[in-house]
């Protein structure tokens, strides 16, 4: 797979967006945040199934960790209650810490796996945890479309 885009910014600004694929939430385990591992057919020829599945599974495990009702969350909850929740002004909740980890993970995945294939993952938190949005950019491949045409399409879109 040739590295068509040197960085994510370049891709966003020069490539034209073809479509967006949305991976919806999987509610079979209740209200916990979990995304469907079903592979969307639109990405059939853009990325290997295993890679996307792995990304989604890792994200799901992060969310499980964030929402885990266990010893640490009880401690945090009791401490917060005892201080009338003032402690959250100085301390970050566990959930927020995990969300930071997730956005770091998504950034890394984008750089290593998705950008080279002309795809871009959007952190679900920016979509209200409703969907995992995958932006599909134009597959330049050997077509070598000129940057000017994509720039003009971007500018008319604006």
């Amino acid at each position, binding site marked *: 797979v040739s590295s068509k885009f040197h960085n994510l910014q370049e891709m966003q600004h020069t490539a034209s967006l073809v479509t967006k694929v949305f991976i919806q939430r999987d509610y079979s385990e209740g209200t916990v945040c979990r995304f469907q591992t079903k592979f969307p057919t639109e990405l059939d020829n853009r990325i290997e199934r295993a890679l996307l599945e792995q990304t989604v599974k890792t994200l799901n495990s992060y969310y499980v960790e964030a929402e885990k009702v266990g010893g640490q*969350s009880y401690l945090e909850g009791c401490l917060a209650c005892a201080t009338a929740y003032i402690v959250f002004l100085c301390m970050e909740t566990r959930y927020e810490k995990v969300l930071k980890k997730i956005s770091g993970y998504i950034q890394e995945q984008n750089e290593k796996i998705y950008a080279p294939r002309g795809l871009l993952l959007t952190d679900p938190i920016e979509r209200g945890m409703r969907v995992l949005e995958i932006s599909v950019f134009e597959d330049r491949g050997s077509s070598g479309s000129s940057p000017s045409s994509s720039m003009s399409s971007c500018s008319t*879109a604006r």
Partner: protein
Amino acid sequence: MSQIQHAVPDGPMRYTQICTRRTSCSSPPTSSSAAGTEPPSCPGHRGRTPRRKWQVFPGRNRFYCDGRVMMARQTGVFYLTLVLILLTSGLFFAFDCPYLASNLSPAIPAVGAVLFVFVMGMLFRASFSDPGVLPRATPDEAADLERQIDSTSCSKPPPRTREVLINGQTVKLKYCFTCKIFRPPRASHCSLCDNCVERFDHHCPWVGNCVGRRNYRFFYLFILSLSFLTIFIFSFVITHVVLRSNRTGFLTTLKDSPASILEVVVCFFSVWSIVGLSGFHTYLISSNQTTNEDIKGTWSRKEGKDNYNPYSYGNVLTNCCAALCGPLPPSLIDRRGPIQADTPQTAPQSNGTGGGSYAPTQLHSHMCDQDQCIQSTKFVLQAAATPLLHSDPVILPPLPAKPTSLGGPCAYLGPAQPTLPSCAGDVLTLRDVAVDSHCHHRLHLHHLHHHQHFVSPEETPCGTPQGALPCPAHMHLQHPAPQVRYDPVTQDSLHEDSVRGLVKLSSV
């Protein structure tokens, strides 16, 4: 398209409530856009472009302190709560505590003060925080969902519900037409705030906010601590009066400390409701139910059906701990975040930003949204004039619909008029939905004076043929379009939703 614009006598002012993105909705800036947000969200209204997301938030909320504080629109009762608590506690500390501290123990005012601070803290947390509002779908998401929904059914009305199996129990996920999402389990759309809220419990006017996933524990701790505070004040005021009466006589006591009577009265009347409410919520927490579910009897034992609560952990202690000490999710609406500039658009017929921001970036989407608003309203008004109709574009025969308590205008099943995908989406916004509508008591449909065919609900009960004729003025607007067909089962919800759309119009 221009026909439609001219056909509407008033400016687009009245349509802001129906648009999903209010900033792109009107070219003349509206004063009604101020409903719920401060300052007005339409750019150019005061020469100030919105910088933060709360300024363009589509729900009916009020924001203060530059987006840090979020409340419902009607806050009158909240101020009453505040006044009652402050007044009673203030009088207690001023008039009763000196006597009690000197004659009994100084620990009494100390404990009272701690309780008071805790009560106020919890009240502010419950009132000012985001209850767990689900942000509305971006246009791309909405279009994608519409495509999925339409593709799954060819000859039947598209299903607006999804079924999912949770812990062996079948749960129905409903599609929210305002927010354009399939609501997660336990989420509900609050019609007062016009938002979908996760784990929606109820909308509490005393607290001036919805009670949902993120502020339920604060609400519960508030009512619990308030019960303790009320009982504390009540008992110690009585103690004070009794002790004093023993020394100086009852009437002298009342003369010396008149505030005590007021405190006793306030506490006596509030203790029943607050303690009762605390008990009720303790029960709800221990069985891991929401008020919404309990009232609807979602998990109550039904005859012949194995109905149980799939969210319960099975054990009272775990349920309590999970509700009160579980992880606190962050707010999903990012109200203080800056409004994103342009983000990449989907190439064919892009409609507005996909970046979760609400700022208008294209004239194209600007016009489209305005048309959507106008079209949406047109269909709503037609719904008012016509009973439940089949999706034939020309003459629409009236169909008998189930009589409902709402009466009034029935849902209108005209064809969609999409010039762009999101137009269809928005038109559908007004049509069929199964919404938890609380608005049937607020019908002011007769206020819509800009459409003479409109009748109030009392005059034209749903299903009677007399109000049946489709408005001739609008018939020429029927363009052949992709059929949108509806399940007769959802007629009530169609009805409810068109009414809801009308209510929104009238409440502008």
